């Protein structure tokens, strides 16, 4: 179906793709794997015509491809779901699904009626119900991802590329997506699938191609491989223990952080829990359960309507990020680029940002000390950077995330909130980050970790709260921390609110 021959793509200073040859057949799901920055997305963009390769040829259906823009690829029957959502917030769901190819009336005007009907039909096929006239900006991220997927079902698709489509949707929706993918495959569509979640690869992929540092490692049938081998191909070494050993802290009498009846409309409803020093408290739940909002409400970056937050037995109810930081909280957000890093600034400035006043002297900012601190953190977290003065925009995702760890471990003394700390990060970097988290807990920080990846919740947390629709619906501990139990709380109706949560609250 599609064959790439000796493709190279060079960005200033980076050889994103280095003589990569690769082929995907009609009627197969071909997984594309590799660490962050391996060049997967670049490869996709070369296929879509968004990037022009510096070298090499693309053959589509045996013929040399001619397109030089996404429009050309689209016309040829290639549909791509990009890693970043490609949606227009001010247009309706239906308009987004049919962007550029809306049904027309006789006069060449858009036939809105037909468009709405067909949009509903497509969403039906995905088993996902959204108001097709609603503006996309009013949807949650999961719904938005489904709209993105629905776009692929418009028109005749010969080659479908999905770049990390499940990063933000829940298990149930992922299941439906996989069913559709399999259906399409059986209809003879060629599918290229990218994901960092290895379980998914094993459940749907037929063949796997691994990239590393812009170079092709190998293409294999999935049946030839097991998990460890695959990881070995990706990181170039064997990874035995992904998660560090758990260490249950001795239960102190007073929690470092106690939340009572916290409400932050519309997403967070009546949340109460305790967090103890030295523990890694996981918050699990489906996307849209309100976990991020809970974290924001705790940190003071969205307003709370009621409830109390006690830190070290001291109530603080006038929350603002500044106040929270001053009291020893840290918050590593889920959106690394949008809410985390300052892309135009260097690493040292990124690290010192929350505690600038510490570096302030009468003569201004103490640059020397700032750089020294950055050096320490680079050393501590083994961040692969040339110097503390280099920019963060050129770093790989994993290293960017480590810079954020560097920032918050400098600033934070009591509680560190982590929201999806490993989202979009490759396995190698993940392992390092798990170790960092473990180490921080051992050093006495209370860690609140939100994650949508159940394996990592199970693998690293010493206690887990489960959220659904803004409420905490369950708490599990010790040997109870298994995927089945967590999923049960995350999905079933509220009669299953356990006594576990009560136990915590009694003090």
């Amino acid at each position, binding site marked *: 179906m599609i064959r790439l021959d000796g493709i190279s793509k060079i960005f200033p200073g980076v050889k994103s793709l280095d003589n990569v040859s690769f082929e995907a057949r009609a009627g197969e799901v071909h997984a594309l794997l590799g660490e962050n920055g391996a060049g997967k997305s670049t490869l996709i963009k070369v296929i879509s015509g968004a990037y022009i390769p510096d070298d090499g040829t693309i053959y589509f259906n045996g013929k040399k491809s001619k397109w030089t823009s996404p429009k050309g690829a689209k016309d040829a029957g290639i549909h791509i779901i*990009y890693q970043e959502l490609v949606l227009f917030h001010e247009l309706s769901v239906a*308009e987004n699904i049919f962007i*550029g*190819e809306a049904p027309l009336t006789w006069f060449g*005007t858009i036939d809105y009626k037909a468009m709405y009907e067909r949009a509903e039909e497509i969403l039906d096929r995905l088993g996902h119900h959204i108001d097709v006239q609603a503006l996309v900006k009013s949807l949650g991220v999961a719904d938005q991802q489904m709209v993105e997927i629905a776009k692929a079902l418009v028109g005749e698709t010969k080659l479908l590329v999905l770049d990390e489509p499940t990063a933000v949707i829940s298990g149930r929706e992922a299941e439906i997506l996989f069913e559709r993918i399999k259906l399409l495959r059986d209809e003879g569509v060629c599918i290229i699938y990218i994901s960092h979640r290895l379980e998914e690869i094993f459940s749907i992929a037929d063949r796997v191609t691994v990239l590393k540092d812009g170079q092709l490692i190998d293409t294999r049938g999935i049946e030839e491989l097991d998990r460890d081998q695959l990881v070995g191909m990706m990181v170039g070494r064997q990874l035995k223990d992904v998660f560090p050993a758990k260490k249950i802290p001795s239960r102190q009498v007073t929690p470092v952080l106690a939340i009572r009846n916290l409400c932050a409309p519309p997403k967070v409803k009546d949340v109460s829990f305790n967090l103890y020093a030295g523990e890694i408290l996981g918050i699990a739940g489906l996307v849209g359960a309100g976990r991020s909002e809970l974290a924001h409400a705790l940190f003071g970056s969205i307003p709370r309507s009621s409830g109390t937050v006690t830190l070290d037995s001291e109530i603080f109810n006038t929350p603002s990020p500044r106040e929270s930081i001053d009291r020893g909280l840290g918050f590593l957000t889920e959106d690394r680029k949008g809410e985390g890093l300052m892309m135009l600034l260097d690493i040292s400035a990124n690290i010192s940002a929350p505690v600038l006043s510490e570096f302030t002297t009468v003569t201004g900012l103490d640059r020397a000390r700032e750089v020294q601190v950055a050096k320490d953190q680079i050393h501590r977290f083994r961040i692969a950077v040339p110097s503390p003065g280099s920019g963060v925009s050129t770093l790989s995702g994993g290293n960017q995330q480590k810079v954020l760890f560097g920032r918050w471990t400098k600033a934070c003394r009591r509680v560190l909130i982590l929201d999806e700390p490993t989202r979009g990060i490759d396995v190698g970097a993940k392992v390092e980050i798990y170790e960092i988290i473990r180490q921080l807990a051992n050093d006495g920080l209370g860690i609140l970790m939100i994650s949508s990846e159940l394996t990592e919740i199970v693998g690293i947390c010493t206690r887990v709260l489960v959220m659904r629709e803004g409420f905490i619906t369950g708490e599990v501990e010790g040997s109870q921390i298994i995927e089945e139990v967590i999923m049960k709380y995350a999905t079933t109706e509220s009669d299953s609110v356990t006594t576990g949560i009560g136990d915590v609250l009694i003090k």
Partner: protein
Amino acid sequence: MMLSKSNNRVRRLKLDPSLIIVILLLAIVIVCGFFLNERFGTMRNFMNVLEQSSGLGFASIGQAMVVIVGGIDLSIGAIITASTVFMAAVVDVHPGLMIPMIFGTLLFGVAIGFCNGYLTLKTGVHPLIVTLGTASILNGSVLIYTLQPTGGVPYWFEEFAYGRIWNVPISGAVMIVCFALVWLFLHYYQTGRAFYAVGGSPEAAHLCGIQSNRVILLAYSASGFFAALAGIYFVSRTGVGDPRIGDPITLSSITPVILGGLILGGGKGNIFGVLLGVIFISLLSNLLNYMNISTFIQWVIQGVIIIIAVSVYVHKGKNL
């Protein structure tokens, strides 16, 4: 299925929330006007205001189209100026070329607009700076050609600016038709919807197979076209080509665009709101004139009203 369809109708009828404020403003001015001055609330006066607002109206349509795709056009005034001089100078010498020159001037506007779009795309410079640059070049060239108003047009051509058919001003009617056509285009044509997509996110639009570059070129060309149309209106209204006439329009063309609910940054808004914004501004100025209020106070009132009106919207952080 049936249920959801009837739901659809209900939603379509709902008022676009970004229009509420400008409609409210209009209502306030009209009601105040009726009470404050007996001559204000006459049909004759409203028709006068419609006629007076045409120049600003034409300029604002173009500005709005550029703003929707995420740009801004600070060369509108310069294009207006250049069009008036171009047209009046040629027609003065060859009066027979009057009709062809209308098309020639419009084409001239399109060409300049196209240059703006092309330079924005090619250089990657912020459109505010690019259009400021072209404006500077245009203004300089025109002033080298003539410092004083020059040229002239045949007497009958005044009818475009002053003429009435069944008491409706021709220029005002043309302006409303232009707004209607642009609205139709933006809402019922793929390319029109693409304006909003490109304004929302040019990279995303590109990845979706929309030819963003063409859309952006189209928007700037349209802006040039409507600026030239405004220029033609001014030639008809003043009878000459004036090397300074467009200066005040550049900034004032942005006010109705924003009052109408569009945002600088793009991707949002209804062109109909811009029309209401244009009429609001002209009515306000008209009412203040009727009340014999000193211009200086008029400035203060206009500025304050704009600030209050715009600060009622709460936009999510877009630039500029």
